[in-house]
């Protein structure tokens, strides 16, 4: 952007910019990033982060039935009776807490992936520090001021908030339900999230109302300022519009008293209403169950059971509504909590801060099932015994980035500050196969030569307008932009690909040109 244009575009945003002290060179347009931004906007994928504040007790959530006697030895006072544990469709080794019938049903219908034993090396037991670690994606001894999703959005929408909103991205980059913008969404220059403090403030925005104030001079001026503030928030209009497009229609929504459901109801209306916002953050607190985790006589009910029931009902209703409002193809949700809890329960009927815990990912496109075995339990757990690390939490983040948001490996490594393997949480989300979605034949030719070892040429047709070709590996991960999108005249064209450092194997290349989309396979060999 020219300097003058920049100034013109965002007079109000100017001040937010220079304060953050990023070199002007950060503005340099990066075609790849632009492409990625468009891609996100185009595929409309949405991630909902569900934060469980306080450290969720994983062992009473995802219950290791294969080690029930060890579990019984460790925590008899909060133990869920074996016959009450909810069975899962394809395993008898693991079950769910009895309050989680909604999620059990989702699991049985192939909408849930559970990752076992998630954490990081040398776990920290402080709520604050551990939360900061999960939000930033850092190692235990690494201090990062940005959040992993903030960095992701920085890559997708470079320069924010300069020049935003714009026609490509008219909507908030991220929305957090609840006051206090999450560190998850902290980018290098700015926090990339918008907060909707509560259900009440959501309705205030939607209806253009403000909270009542006393009929005094102070109240009069307060009301005036509140209106101006609300009406000048950058995204008030788009939120009003989106909320006006869709209502909460699932009959599964719990009626009252479920804080998570209240938040997900807002998220659902905004997604269904057409917001392009790719990330939502919701949260539910109370998981710090040091005492009275369960009812003393009936361990299947009580504080923890209530929380799990809230999550289960809220998530189940949310995905039910996703189906009704037809956005189920583009939504995924994942839970996270700063740590799990101790194997052995304490005498107060609770559990103390622990290490790893399971993470749930929900989507129509997860690999249904469980990644990893149940965490091994000692025969007689001592007070200090903790669960081992089975899966680094960043291997889930990498799955989200690579397979859900389809970020290339290089960018993903940058966002996560290191290379992590990609856990197979998601199915091949591109559903790549040789297809042509077009009324015309032969818009995309077979590459020649094929297989190839040095270079190959692809012939294709354009109907005019923007044309782009991307290369994916067999797992559906974007490997390379063969042809970054550009205007091309109607007619036949050719592009030659240099192999570069592509490892040998099968790949798919996909052409996009307006409504025309076509995918073909190619082979690289040494």
């Amino acid at each position, binding site marked *: 952007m020219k*300097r003058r244009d920049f*100034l013109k575009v965002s*007079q*109000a945003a*100017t*001040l*937010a*910019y*220079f*304060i*953050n*002290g*990023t*070199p*002007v*060179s*950060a*503005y340099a347009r990066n075609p790849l990033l632009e492409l990625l931004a468009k891609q996100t906007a185009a595929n409309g994928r949405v991630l909902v982060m569900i*934060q469980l*504040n*306080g450290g969720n007790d994983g062992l009473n959530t995802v219950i290791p039935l294969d080690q029930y006697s060890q579990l019984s030895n460790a925590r008899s006072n909060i133990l869920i009776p074996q016959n009450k544990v909810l069975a899962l469709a394809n395993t008898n080794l693991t079950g769910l807490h009895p309050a989680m019938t909604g999620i059990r049903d989702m699991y049985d219908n192939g909408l849930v992936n559970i990752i076992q034993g998630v954490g990081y090396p040398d776990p920290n037991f*402080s*709520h*604050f*520090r551990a*939360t*900061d670690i999960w939000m930033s994606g850092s190692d235990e001894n690494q*201090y990062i*001021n940005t959040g992993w999703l903030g960095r992701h959005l920085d890559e997708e929408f470079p320069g924010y908030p300069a020049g935003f909103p714009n026609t490509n991205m008219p909507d908030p980059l991220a929305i957090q339900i*609840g*006051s*206090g*913008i999450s*560190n998850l969404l902290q980018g290098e220059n700015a926090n990339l999230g918008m907060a909707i*403090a*509560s259900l009440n403030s959501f309705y205030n925005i939607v209806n253009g109302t403000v909270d009542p104030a*006393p*009929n*005094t*001079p*102070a*109240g*009069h*001026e*307060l009301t*005036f*300022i*509140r*209106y*101006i*503030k609300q*009406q*000048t928030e*950058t995204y008030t209009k788009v939120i009003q519009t989106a909320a006006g497009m869709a209502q909460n229609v699932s009959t599964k929504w719990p009626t009252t008293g479920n804080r998570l459901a209240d938040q997900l109801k807002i998220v659902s209306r905004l997604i269904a209403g057409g917001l392009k916002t790719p990330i939502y953050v919701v*949260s539910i*607190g*109370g998981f*710090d169950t040091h005492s009275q985790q369960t009812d003393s006589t009936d361990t299947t009910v009580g504080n923890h059971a209530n929380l799990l029931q809230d999550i289960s009902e809220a998530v189940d209703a949310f995905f039910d509504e996703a189906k009704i409002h037809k956005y189920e193809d583009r939504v995924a949700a994942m839970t996270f909590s700063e740590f799990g809890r101790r194997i052995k329960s304490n005498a107060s009927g609770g559990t103390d801060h622990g290490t790893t815990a399971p993470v749930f990912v929900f989507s129509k496109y997860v690999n249904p099932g469980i990644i990893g075995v149940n965490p091994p339990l000692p025969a007689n757990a001592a007070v200090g015994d903790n669960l081992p690390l089975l899966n680094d939490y960043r291997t889930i983040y990498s799955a989200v980035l690579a397979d859900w948001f389809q970020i290339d490996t290089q960018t993903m490594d940058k966002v996560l500050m290191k290379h992590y393997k990609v856990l197979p949480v998601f199915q091949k989300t591109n559903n790549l196969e040789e297809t042509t979605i077009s009324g015309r034949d032969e818009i995309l030719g077979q590459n020649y030569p094929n297989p190839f070892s040095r270079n190959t040429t692809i012939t294709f047709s354009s109907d005019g307008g923007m044309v782009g070709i991307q290369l994916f590996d067999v797992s559906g991960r974007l490997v390379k932009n063969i042809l970054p999108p550009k205007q091309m005249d109607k007619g036949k064209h050719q592009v030659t690909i240099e192999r570069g450092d592509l490892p040998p194997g099968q790949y798919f290349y996909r052409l996009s040109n307006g409504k025309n989309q076509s995918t073909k396979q190619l082979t690289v060999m040494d």
Partner: protein
Amino acid sequence: MGKVNRREFFEELIATQVETAPVVTDDIIYNKYANKELPRGLSKTTGTLTKYTGQWTDNEIIHLLRRTMFGVKYEDVLALRGMTMEQAVDELLSPQTIPSPPVNNYNTATYNDPTGVPLDDTWVNAPYGDSTVNSYRLLSMTNWWIGNMVYQPQRRITEKMVFFWHNHFATEYPAVAFAHMTYRHHMILRNNVLGNFKTLVTQVTKDPAMLRYLNGYLNTKTAPDENYARELFELFTLGKNYKPIYSEDDIKAAARILTGWRYNTSTWTSVFTANLHDTSNKTFSSFFANTTITGKTGAAGAQETDELIDMIFTKQEVAKFIVRKLYRFFVYYDIDTTTEFNIIIPLAQMMMNTNWQIKPVLETLLKSEHFYDMLSMDCVIRTPIDYVVGTFRTFDIQLPGGWRSDNEYKIYNYLRSYMGQLGCEPNLPPNVAGWPAFYQEPDYYQKWINSTTMPRRMQFMDMMLGSGFSAGTGTAIKIDPMHLAKKFYSPGDPNLLIDFFCDLLLGIGISSTMKTNFKVVTLLSGQTQDYYWTNAWSAYIANPNTTNTNIVRTRLVSLLTELTHLAEHNLC
């Protein structure tokens, strides 16, 4: 643009542009929500000027401090707890030390003051030099003033009153154009903040800066210029609303009386030039009891100016006009008939009875039950100056020790520009009437908040709570949230700490539900147990290493961002 740092680039940009008040007329959102008429039907105080004898708690203390100074410093709250209400007001109204004058902040490696004033020395007694150094000095003067506001040395009403008088006798520095004049004009206001209103009007009438600004220096017997005479009546003494009472001929007569005033650009004083003065008699309308001011020749012609002011100050309207303006500045803009009877008329009478003394009027108002009535609290919308300077004062933001004036004034210069962006740059009012927020019915101070300035206010807080600004000094000036928290006796108690911040930062209190919500979300990171914050704070105090510092800082910044984004942060 090469490798220019983006921050530096924009700082330079903002610091050099002359920004006038954002235009409100096309602001659809503002027009929708601002007053269409004065807000009648509100519960308002019927309190009188009877001395307040009620409780003296932080509520009253903070109310008094917010209205008489810029923002609230916690040290001042502590000090006022040890006084009675009367002692507190007496102290605020006692004289403040006169600040040392503005200095050369503009010498650089490639530029030196042509009159030989070294860096850090004052230029106010140096010769004019040339237009370049004059332009540097004009900015030096305003920036010096901002420095006085931010770092005022004593607990006094002075700085707020200087601004009050600046708004009343508004001048624009580009029109006055001589730095020496702007400084001397400013000192007239500063030396008379709580003095005698009539003396102030007399001095301003003959002041070189005002002679230039309203063309008095061009007013001559052969071609009288009515500019100043009109504003003297309409804006400085009698008020526009009484225009139908005095006649156009009165303004013409006054203009003739004022012929002959010139200024000297080496002494920077005004000079009465008798041969330019209209020596004929000037007769006024029945509004002034058909007074005739006898024309005088020679140096005695200057006496006519004093006689003119004597005549104007026989009118009770003058007292009512200035008392109403003080009331709108210190209490609320809407003056209904009850307030007119209970407050305005008695104070105007008092002003006339004390021969136009300002201090007794303010003292009576600030000690009254009317002022401390709950219904008089929290209803003033903070001016841009109050917002910016108040942030520096409340958070006690200090500049690095050992700085010379060049760096120090860069910071003030940045604040000056930011105030302009928010709609109120000192020494740059929109016109001689001052800022419309202080006089324009029916919306008055609502004018400070519009769809341009509201987001900018929040951006200012984001900046100050984030990476700050360096204005080319190489040092980021920003809020250290721990510094303020540490002043409080119990920062480890998250509930008390939030109360503490709310008291200092919010004009009107928020509910305990909201406070709890902020606490859980920010200080407790979603936890429900208070001791998590307490432990984090204790760990930080015991060992302020990176981990412990980051943990408390991010949470405090998060809390303070929430609080300063509230509409309540804009009220005082």
